[in-house]
């Protein structure tokens, strides 16, 4: 209980128990709020879902309308002595209940795949992951070595970094039409957009990380006879590896933000296409399920990468405290 109190002091020290409690609450509180809004009619429910249109000819069952409009329709019908329209309080269509989303979510994994490409969440998501994977891999294969070399070689940095800095400010979507014109309409331009969005940032970020290596370590290794490639591979790279790992985790997140753009150019595909498509049909339960999958996959990979990082680079964590 002391830890709980300390958690609310500026820079207070928490204990394991209160960290766990907060961790559970972090998930539970938003879910509870969502459930309350969805299942307790008095909380919000600004609309009415028509179950029986009664005598009002412009109403259909399954339609949603504002409460005020509905009660006006009811009084009108009462005045005309015609059957009164029936309905239940409901939320707008864009806010499905947790249960509906969960059903859609489970359905995404259990239903047999419908015909046609990318008609299920999982297929669409699988395609997205492929785009991200190739985009990020290609970007890293160029960006990480080039960034390290820029950080270590001042001459190269002066040559490369100004133009990289220029390209970094050009929004990746601007390359969409160009990428399609050059690379066709399928996956290639999408991967190219991810690469363009990530690569330039990556070079600069990694170069900066490389420059931040404790210079005393470089000097110490020089007095021990290290130079050239040995200095690079035995001192520079092991020294910056934990920070590069951290940079890559952040950059992977950025790559995801370019996915939306990438998937809308050429032939739309992947999870973005799925979401826009489902939103057009007002299947918001599917939309939320798709979003949940992206979020869970992102959070999951980041947590796994974080755990692995702590394992690989135990020394770094202990120094940084």
């Amino acid at each position: 209980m002391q830890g709980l109190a300390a958690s609310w002091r500026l820079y207070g020290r928490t204990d394991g128990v209160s960290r766990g409690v907060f961790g559970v609450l972090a998930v539970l509180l938003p879910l509870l709020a969502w459930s309350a809004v969805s299942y307790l009619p008095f909380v919000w429910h600004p609309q009415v879902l028509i179950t029986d249109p009664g005598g009002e000819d412009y109403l259909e069952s399954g339609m949603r309308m504002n409460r005020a409009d509905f009660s006006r329709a009811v009084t009108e019908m009462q005045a005309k002595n015609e059957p009164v329209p029936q309905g239940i309080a409901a939320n707008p269509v864009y806010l499905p209940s947790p249960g509906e989303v969960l059903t859609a979510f489970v359905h995404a994994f259990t239903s047999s795949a419908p015909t046609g490409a990318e008609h299920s969440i999982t297929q669409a998501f699988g395609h997205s992951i492929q785009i991200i994977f190739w985009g990020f891999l290609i970007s890293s294969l160029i960006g990480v070595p080039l960034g390290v070399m820029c950080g270590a070689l001042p001459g190269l940095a002066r040559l490369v970094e100004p133009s990289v800095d220029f390209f970094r400010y050009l929004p990746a979507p601007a390359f969409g039409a160009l990428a399609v014109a050059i690379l066709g309409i399928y996956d290639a331009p999408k991967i190219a957009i991810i690469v363009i969005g990530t690569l330039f940032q990556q070079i600069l970020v990694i170069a900066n990380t490389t420059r931040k290596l404790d210079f005393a370590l470089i000097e110490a290794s020089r007095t021990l006879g290290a130079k050239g490639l040995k200095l690079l591979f035995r001192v520079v790279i092991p020294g910056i590896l934990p920070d590069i790992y951290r940079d890559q985790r952040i950059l992977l997140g950025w790559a995801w933000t370019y996915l939306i753009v990438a998937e809308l150019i050429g032939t739309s595909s992947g999870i973005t296409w799925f979401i826009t498509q489902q939103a057009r049909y007002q299947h918001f339960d599917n939309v939320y399920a798709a979003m949940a999958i992206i979020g869970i996959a992102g959070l999951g990979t980041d947590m796994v990468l974080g755990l692995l990082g702590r394992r690989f680079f135990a020394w770094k964590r202990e120094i940084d405290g």
Partner: protein
Amino acid sequence: MTEHQLPDYRTLPADVAERMDQIRQREYVLEIDHVGKVFAQKRHQTVALEDIEFGVHRREFVCVVGPSGCGKSTLIRILAGLEETTTGRILVDGKPVNGPGPDRGMVFQKYTLFPWLDVCRNVMFGIEMGGTERAEARRQAMQWLQVVGLEQFAASFPHQLSGGMQQRVAIARALAARPRVLLMDESFSALDAQTRLKMQNYLMEIWRKIDITIVFITHDLDEAIYLADRILVLKPRPGRVEEVIEVPLSRPRRAAQMMSDEFLATKAHLEGLIRSFGGNTEETDEGADDFTMPLLTLVTDKAE
């Protein structure tokens, strides 16, 4: 100490005089040949070192002292090859050297062990850079760890060791690369007083056992007198050799000698010298000697 006259620091006891003669007959391992260093900033130049001329004999222990700004750190960085000379050159065993190299090992003030390598791999680093294969390097590294008494920590990581232990590993790492000269840049100044004394004794023990020449930079006069055969006193702005003092203490040295008349005489002389440069030693950097503290009664309410 006022009751009796301190002896002249220049009169060497017989055994010390004999030892200095022996040292003088040995060849120079490290020569500083008319070295000058000018730092050029925007429009104005700072002369850090001017015409330094000095030779260090084989197996000699030389300390360099001087007030802050006398360029002693610049000097040792030049010796290590981490800084270039503006004029003059550095010779090791009579041959001019350029840039850093394994012939001049260095122990820094900061802890500079590679944090991603365990203690043994740290010590192996310099050996492997010399082209020795791994198994042999490991064997040699373990021997050096034995020399500094840390072989049971071979598998530990630097952050798991205390500051003094880290500096011992750093010494072992520098020595393992088989340097001709060991350069030490205020290597013990980050340690607490007791650890520092222990480290000084360790260092002298190691130095006695192996063929190594040591140049040790320090701003701690006690440390310089306790360790050195000769003390090089630098004068600031521009950095120049003011005096070279032969320390009148016999070896092996023990902490008790720090109370001897010879020690005190040497220290008194050094203190006088450094005060004559402007009283700007590193200890009093923050304020002049005549700084008067304002009366604090108004804020404390507790004056007598």
